[in-house]
């Protein structure tokens, strides 16, 4: 079960139109609890509530030394600071799905594991979880540094080679899992889009907005502009796994 809402930009804040129970919410946290029992698309009595950009949920597990960038790993930045790789979002809402959460995850590299998580995630829309039953939000946009995640990260027997590009200056796109996961390889970033509707995932891939530089993840999405007509081609070496994290 997922939720979406009618959103419209009115001045500096987006406004969420919902029923009066939802309209009584004062904070995003409280609203989240109320929304868990409310199907917004069925609301009738309309009211309006300001929806602020969510706080960044800081899920960085690292020590001071892990803030150092090496050839194979970017240093971890906390959620309160700009990422040290170009990140992308869909702005403050997409296709009626409001931005509900921002996650900054950067794990301690483990010798026993072939990779670690290092991404900034924007989550759109809500869902209702239960005991022993997590739920998948309708849409999630994760950006990873391409030196840590790219097409080359996967076993060769799972991923065939890319088709020749029709345009040397364009980003590349790969579709996985029946369209529920799409990866966009652009410059020094890998944008991974997850969703429950392949059509929506595809539309999201065409609507990515680069975060303005030097802004923290929540400030960046609040300041983001329009999606550009194209995104740059992947940096040399990023599709073959030879891109160094040290630029």
């Amino acid at each position, binding site marked *: 079960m997922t939720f979406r809402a009618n959103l419209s930009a009115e001045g500096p804040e987006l406004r969420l139109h919902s029923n009066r129970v939802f309209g009584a919410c004062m904070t995003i946290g409280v609203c989240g*609890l109320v929304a868990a029992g409310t199907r917004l698309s069925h609301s009738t009595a309309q009211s309006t509530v300001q929806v602020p950009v969510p706080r960044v949920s800081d*899920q960085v597990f690292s020590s001071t030394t892990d803030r150092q960038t090496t050839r194979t790993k970017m240093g971890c930045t906390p959620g309160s600071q700009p990422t040290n790789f170009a990140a992308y979002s869909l702005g403050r809402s997409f296709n009626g799905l409001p931005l509900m959460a921002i996650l900054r*995850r950067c794990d301690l590299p483990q010798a026993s594991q*072939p990779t670690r998580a290092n991404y900034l995630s924007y989550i759109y829309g809500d869902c209702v979880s239960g005991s022993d*039953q*997590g739920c998948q939000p309708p849409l999630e946009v994760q950006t990873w540094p391409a030196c840590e995640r790219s097409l080359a990260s996967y076993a060769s027997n799972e991923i065939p080679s890319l088709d020749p590009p029709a345009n040397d200056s364009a980003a590349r796109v790969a*579709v996985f899992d029946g369209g529920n996961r799409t990866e966009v390889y652009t410059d020094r970033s890998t944008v991974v889009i997850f969703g429950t509707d392949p059509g929506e995932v595809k539309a999201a891939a065409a609507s990515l907005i680069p975060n303005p530089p030097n802004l923290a993840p929540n400030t960046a999405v609040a300041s983001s502009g329009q999606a550009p007509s194209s995104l740059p081609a992947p940096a040399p070496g990023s599709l073959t796994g030879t891109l160094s994290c040290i630029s």
Partner: protein
Amino acid sequence: MLGLAVAIFGSLAFAGASSADFPTFSHAYTQRTGGDCQNDGSDPVDALYYDHGGATNATTVTANATGWNHNSGDPQWLSVHAANGGYNCHLMDYQNASAGDLHITRYHIRIWGIPGSPPDNHKSVGDAHHERIVPEDGCGDSVYPNGHSADGSGFDEGREELGRQFIADGFRVTEDIWGNTANFKQCDGQFAGSNGVGVQIQLPI
């Protein structure tokens, strides 16, 4: 192996694209409901048993190797590779846990046999995770969130603990990158996702 869809972003030419699927034994995420096994994802698939990895043997050996002898927990479904080459939505075959589901914290894995695996290489998959009881607001079992420990989220902790226990028992254990890193909202409102790693455990024939 299905073809990989590649498009040029400027015009976003997805035309003619097909998709590469998750490692072909199953879909990437378990489901809370059966039916078409679509759009109700709950856990990332993060473990593979192979060789003598049929579901019955997998659950028995898991209990022996890890001590995860309890079998309580809610049912889930998964689209698994069928004998006819397609994919069918199956209810889990077994589950193993380190404690009952009312225990304050436990490791837990649900196991699905893969009917489409070859006779000389029976496979099963699972959703290993580390979870805790959250009593507030009627929550219940909640997988530990991202950043919970050096291993990562509760999904990463469960997978790593499973692998460590099998290594300690002398089994061959390897890891691969599967890329199923979507986040799942838990009943405490926090998010947990896998780092995309899958553990592969050989159960000798």
